[in-house]
């Protein structure tokens, strides 16, 4: 462990803003939206108090936030932003353009339900809406992980074999507004770890003018998209390499996912972000009762670790995948489809069910999670799955 690290108590938004301060990007362009508003707020105070060298561009919309980040990053700068829900929806067009231009922009996405109707609370419908946009997507269980993931972000995104934008997700309000203990890394160590950005080609290099963002027709677009796909494949190893370096600096270990009491488990839940914390509590409780429950907490959702997940779940007797966003496709949530597809192509058959849960900030308690494990035990006993596409915590007729 690193003895010099700083112990603090910060909210998830403060943690993200602190990481940004230590990264000291050249440009931040952002627009306020609950629950991520605090990030540009905190960051503006860093700017106005001279604690960073950043140009803060207080844009008039999220569409312009991402456009300005693209302009800045293409110009040769390190650009960052933060947003949530409808803000990300408004950016959607530019999200695809950022990745297609191979610009390693880093975003802090504080997950919230996408309208409509309007709701400001947490679910993952914002992130799920951009899952095919060519961004690396890291999920964070708590404030510490939101901070750590941001510190690792640039080393991953800016790697020559990757050059893709990256978003670090955390749960709106649940972690963004909860104050928790956190271990910070010293400023100089972060600076050394993140390093300086040295782009190969950039607009502001007057000795080598470049043109960015062409009309790209039938003869070339396919190859350019395949290049993005290849970069996403490359990202997996880079994420692991950067995690190793990060562990050397902090002692904190990260991988593609966390396996919690999974190796000898018979039944397991797969989920992302803060629900993993609640699930760990339930797993511990069930273990005391002799139930062989486990958890796979996914950290790296894009690139999706297909072989690794299939392997990690192969020994189980039943699994439940928890989706905090409904796909409204009459089939199941996005994570469920990715997990089951990963297992299918790796020729692994484990009975699997999907629970859509927590929509619009609906509270998911330990009892709810426990009921999932109870269902899984029942599936193991009977070998029967009546309906693989289920809801958890949905009010039934007659409920208050």
């Amino acid at each position: 462990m690193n003895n010099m690290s700083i112990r603090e108590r910060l909210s998830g938004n403060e943690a993200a803003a602190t990481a940004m301060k230590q990264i000291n990007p050249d440009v931040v362009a952002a627009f306020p939206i609950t629950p991520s508003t605090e990030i540009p707020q905190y960051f503006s105070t860093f700017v106005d108090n001279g604690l960073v060298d950043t140009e803060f561009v207080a844009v008039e919309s999220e569409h312009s936030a991402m456009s300005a980040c693209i302009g800045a990053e293409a110009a040769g700068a390190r650009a960052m932003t933060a947003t949530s829900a409808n803000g990300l929806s408004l950016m959607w067009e530019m999200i695809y353009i950022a990745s297609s231009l191979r610009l390693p922009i880093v975003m802090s996405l504080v997950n919230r339900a996408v309208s409509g109707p309007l709701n400001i609370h947490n679910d993952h419908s914002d992130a799920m809406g951009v899952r095919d946009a060519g961004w690396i997507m890291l999920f964070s269980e708590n404030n510490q992980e939101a901070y750590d993931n941001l510190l690792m972000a640039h080393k991953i995104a800016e790697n020559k074999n990757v050059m893709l934008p990256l978003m670090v997700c955390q749960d709106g309000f649940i972690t963004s507004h909860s104050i928790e203990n956190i271990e910070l890394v010293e400023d100089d160590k972060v600076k050394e770890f993140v390093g300086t950005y040295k782009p190969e080609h950039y607009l502001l290099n007057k000795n080598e003018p470049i043109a960015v963002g062409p009309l790209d027709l039938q003869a070339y677009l396919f190859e350019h998209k395949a290049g993005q796909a290849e970069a996403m494949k490359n990202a997996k190893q880079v994420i692991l390499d950067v995690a190793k370096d990060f562990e050397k600096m902090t002692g904190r270990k990260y991988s593609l996912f966390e396996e919690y009491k999974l190796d000898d488990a018979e039944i397991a839940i797969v989920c992302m972000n803060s629900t993993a914390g609640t699930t760990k509590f339930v797993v511990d409780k069930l273990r005391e009762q002799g139930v062989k429950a486990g958890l796979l907490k996914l950290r790296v959702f894009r690139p999706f670790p297909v072989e690794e997940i299939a392997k990690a779940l192969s020994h189980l007797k039943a699994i439940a995948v928890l989706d905090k966003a409904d796909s409204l496709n009459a089939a199941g949530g996005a994570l469920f489809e990715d997990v089951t597809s990963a297992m299918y192509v790796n020729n692994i058959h484990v009975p699997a069910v999907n629970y859509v849960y927590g929509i619009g900030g609906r509270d998911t308690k330990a009892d709810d999670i426990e009921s999932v494990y109870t269902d899984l035990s029942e599936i193991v006993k009977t070998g029967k799955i009546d309906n693989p596409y289920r809801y958890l915590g949905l009010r039934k007729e007659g409920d208050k």
Partner: protein
Amino acid sequence: MPYNVKEIVANKPSRFTSGHRMCAGCGAPPVARHIMRALKPEDHAVVANATGCMEVSTFIYPYTAWTDSFIHTAFECAGATLAGAEAAYVSMKKQGKLPADGDTKFIAFGGDGGTYDIGLQSLSGAMERGHDLVYVCYDNGAYMNTGIQRSSATPKYADTTTSPAGTVIPGKTQCRKDLSKIMVGHHIPYVAQTIAYMNFKDLYEKAEKAIYTEGPAFLNVMSPCPRGWGYPTEDLMKINKLAVETCYWPLYEVVNGVYHISYKPAKKLPIEEFLKPQKRFRHMFKPGNEWMIEDFQRIVDERWQELLDLEEITNKNK
């Protein structure tokens, strides 16, 4: 040194090369080329384009007509994209991450669709925040790239594919938006309306001022479209001339809020002279439709008088 178009063309190589695919008789390429010539030879530029005719005709992978750095992202965000590049420049220069010598200038080009309409918010934001950049609107008065749909810059009665001159509705029924005045309302240091006319002197001098004025600047440049307006390609300069001589497109600049009309025709030509050579106004000349021409003339007269008044008012206390 007094302006001399021959010397400028001879001594300042074009930074917007031939081989681009814009139509013959289009007003935009000479505008882009001449504005880029207004840069000092030693200065580098970052050019942004909104999606539109100019972008899809000048940068088709793997070819580009731009010799300076260039970026295009989407239709509605040339303002924000260029603002981001400018912010990067300010930040990196301040931190010593860029060479101390030489300047980089920031110039955006957007059509009226990408500027008056879908890009207005992004443009307004960039102007209000005070980025040191020039936004050039090449205004051809409709969405020409997608096939001549009406925009808020389309003049009243014009026949477009989404405001066709029909048997019941005679073309566009609304007036043009006055974008230059919207820009003046941002209290930026420099706003000008110009055109490629009279040896391009007005265009060149205003471009030079816009580029070398610190802070945001806006140029509105009328750029006729032979397909959308329906004139023979060789008549581009004639159309530009008639737009100015009828006061349909007044040339003026607003420097720190003070209006200055750059050209006052000795004898203002009747608006028919401008309308007649263009097929988009053909229906206005059918018997019984004289009222449309009269109404059009009234609008031109009112706008011209308004401009004369603004010039007088804003110069009063100088």
